[in-house]
């Protein structure tokens, strides 16, 4: 039907978990991993092994306690950041943070130090993206190279660029970056509503967003957004970690400093947080040494008191967003909750209070963003012409003026794409280059805003000071990413703009990383992918053999013989091939050939009923391949 290149997937690249989905005529669908249809969540954890191998996901996460220094989680918090931004994180994270080699005062890109090697956050994120790409390729049986990726609405330009860079390193053309709360609104299919005002409250593992949208005949207009890209469920865990660390220090005089215990404490705190979501108390027990056990019970009330300042910050942001949107709580028709951290009852209670209505939670808060990304993918693919997203920029954009002030060019919450033009000149005779410090933020002084980078206008024709007039156009595109172009008025010539990102990678650096990653991916990922496909093939073959054994009498001899032959064929091919894509294609063909038997087997099972059969019925309907007879 469609060309291979036409497949466009939607990815939720989360702090804690990541998911991949796609959209077709029947709507959006999540793509599962190798284990089974329910295996849709990929923990955003990357583990580096001693033999040089890398694993991603559940398996990687299982190494967190025993090998904390080489198991990297929460990488999203580091995206688009410098080491100077991450002082608090450096204390709490069990792995080592450093700075990209060769950074100058102007450039500060954070990196993770693993086994004496430095990895930038986009490189680590690319490993997660590659895993998701492989999932999608296994699902479609062909290569996938284009994606929509979601980011927190409050991500700045550097964080968005870093996300796009991660995609490129993973071999994905990121055709669109979509804000997570906006994607969630799409997933809810609220476009069917004639017109309404809705609020999306999105509290994830490491980021918080609140977006206020207006829906009008299928058009989603974001009116305002607010948030904090450094506030999430991780911070709830941190309050518990800090409490336990302090009490252990007071009771036993022991400072918790080793990475292993830090990670144990983190895992424990996560579990306690979740337990307190449906119970009133949680027991805590930590063995510190021989005969030394730290014991206490923590109540939900205590926990709520501890997280109150954090939740309070999100509520304040909600009020600001409503004000910016020009709406009162009464004018908001619907509040949607997104992100795993909205499972905390105290969060729900406070959100209900501020919006004066009960929040809507029909969809799984952990899946809704990925589903929205898939919907956006189908909009871009032209399959969905009725729906359109009109988003805003979360932060004001400006330039540093003489005297160190922030000269605002575009305000926060203006609709994107948007642009502004500013004219620059020279201060010295014969000057051929002008440097512009581009800023994002709401503060009045340049040093209190975030520098996106130094943009240098080059090749200005030498003229007396003040004579050249260079019009610089700043354009924020639909992805919320800044594009800068310059033109000299007199000559009408386009001036070149050299960009040195303050907290990001240059185009050349990304290209280099992509090449490195491709080299690595060919060797490692194919092998890794092949193992997964082989496992799936073996699963399907066993299932088919069981079916023939039990229900083979329901089909004629010739058919049975050809099926048995097909099983032997596929098994032999799996043994000798090193091409996972080809193998997966054969697997799909094989599964189609067993469909009719599966259907007959299903009917037989339903007729028998009541005996020990339901178990096998469940088995038949669970893995992909056979047509789904799940509900009757």
């Amino acid at each position: 039907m469609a060309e291979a290149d036409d497949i466009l997937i939607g990815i939720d690249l989360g702090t804690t978990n990541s998911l991949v989905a796609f959209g077709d005529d029947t709507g959006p669908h999540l793509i599962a991993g190798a284990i089974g249809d329910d295996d849709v969540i990929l923990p955003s954890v990357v583990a580096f092994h001693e033999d040089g191998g890398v694993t991603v996901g559940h398996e990687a996460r299982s190494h967190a306690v025993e090998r904390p220094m080489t198991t990297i989680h929460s990488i999203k918090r580091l995206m688009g950041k410098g080491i100077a931004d991450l002082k608090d994180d450096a204390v709490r994270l069990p792995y080592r943070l450093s700075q990209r080699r060769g950074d100058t005062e102007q450039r500060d890109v954070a990196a993770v130090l693993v086994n004496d090697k430095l990895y930038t956050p986009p490189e680590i994120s690319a490993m997660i993206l590659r895993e998701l790409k492989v999932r999608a390729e296994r699902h479609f049986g062909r290569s996938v190279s284009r994606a929509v990726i979601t980011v927190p609405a409050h991500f700045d330009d550097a964080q968005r660029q870093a996300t796009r860079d991660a995609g490129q390193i993973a071999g994905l053309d990121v055709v669109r970056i979509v804000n997570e709360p906006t994607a969630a609104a799409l997933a809810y299919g609220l476009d069917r509503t004639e017109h309404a005002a809705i609020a999306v409250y999105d509290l994830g593992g490491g980021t918080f967003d609140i977006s206020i949208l207006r829906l009008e005949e299928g058009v989603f207009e974001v009116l305002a957004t607010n948030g904090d890209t450094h506030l999430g469920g991780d911070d709830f865990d941190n309050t518990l970690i800090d409490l336990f660390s302090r009490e252990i220090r007071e009771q036993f005089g022991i400072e918790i400093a080793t990475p292993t215990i830090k990670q144990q404490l983190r895992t424990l705190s996560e579990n306690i947080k979740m337990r307190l979501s449906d119970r009133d108390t949680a027991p805590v027990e930590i063995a510190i040494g021989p005969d030394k056990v730290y014991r206490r019970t923590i109540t939900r009330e205590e926990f709520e008191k501890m997280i109150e300042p954090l939740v309070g910050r999100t509520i304040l942001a909600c009020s600001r967003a409503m004000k910016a949107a020009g709406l009162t709580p009464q004018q908001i028709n619907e509040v949607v909750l997104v992100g795993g951290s909205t499972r905390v009852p105290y969060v729900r209670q406070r959100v209900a209070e501020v919006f004066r209505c009960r929040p809507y939670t029909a969809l799984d808060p952990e899946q809704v963003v990925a589903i929205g990304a898939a919907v956006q993918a189908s909009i871009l693919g032209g399959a969905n012409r009725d729906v359109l997203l009109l988003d805003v920029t979360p932060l004001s954009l400006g330039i540093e003026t003489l005297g160190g002030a922030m000269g605002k060019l575009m305000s926060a919450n203006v609709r994107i794409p948007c642009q502004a033009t500013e004219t620059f000149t020279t201060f010295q005779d014969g000057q051929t280059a002008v440097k512009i410090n581009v800023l994002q933020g709401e503060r009045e002084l340049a040093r209190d805003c975030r520098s996106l980078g130094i943009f240098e206008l080059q090749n200005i024709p030498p003229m007396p000071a003040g004579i050249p007039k260079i019009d610089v156009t700043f354009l924020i595109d639909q992805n919320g990413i800044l594009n800068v172009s310059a033109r000299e008025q007199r000559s009408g010539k386009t001036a070149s703009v050299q960009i040195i990102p303050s907290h990001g990678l240059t185009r050349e650096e990304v290209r280099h990383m992509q090449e490195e990653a491709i080299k690595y991916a060919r060797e490692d990922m194919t092998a890794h992918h092949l193992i997964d496909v082989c496992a799936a093939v073996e699963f399907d073959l066993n299932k088919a053999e069981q079916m023939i054994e039990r229900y083979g009498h329901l089909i004629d001899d010739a058919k049975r013989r050809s099926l048995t032959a097909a099983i032997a064929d596929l098994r032999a091919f799996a043994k000798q091939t090193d091409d996972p894509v080809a193998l997966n294609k054969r697997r799909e063909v094989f599964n189609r050939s067993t469909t009719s038997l599966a259907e007959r087997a299903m009917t037989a099972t339903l007729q028998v009923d009541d005996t020990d059969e339901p178990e096998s019925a469940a088995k038949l309907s669970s893995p992909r391949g056979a047509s789904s007879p799940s509900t009757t």
Partner: protein
Amino acid sequence: MSCTESTVPVKCLKCQAELASPIVCTGCRTLYPPPQSADYFDLLGLQRNYVIDESQLTAAVRAISRKIHPDRFADQPPEMRKLATRLSAEVNQAMTVLKDPAQRAAYMLELAGGPSAAEVRDVPGDLLAEVMVLREQIDEAQSSQDAEPVEQMRSSIQARRTQALKQIASRADQLAAHSDEEKKEFRRLLNSLKYFDNLLEQLAADPLAQASGADNG
């Protein structure tokens, strides 16, 4: 009023349908670079009047956005996508300016060849003295620790701003026929809005956080 109409294309070059906006044919989705002569009103297909029906404005933007948003051109060549992005940015800019009464009036003054805020920086004669008094009253109201006087101040300053805006509104549509001196006076009225905005901002701010309340005016 409608002297620009002649230079704006009237019909789509491709499908001959009538163009509601000069940048896009809503029939066949053909995009056109904005003509030099097209102003923000032309861009959105609106009459050049100061009084604008906001729902008509947002509906016009929505209809055009449906056709020109870059997401609608994801499968098109890069030049097409770039043009869609640029046109969308212009339409959004037009919406931002025309939606806000003060920005809309300033834009109409610009179209009429009037002075910019950099060229005429002063305000109507008696305003500065008035603002000084108001500022003192704000300080007094805020130091009373009572919400009532602050609220009173807010509504009286809001009323002054509305009054200035009314004066602006009554003149905006005749700007083209005005003398240079009258255009300068119009600019002074526009400048006065900034002062009221600053006062309202000062009122909205938390008095405890206002250690150094020295606003520049």
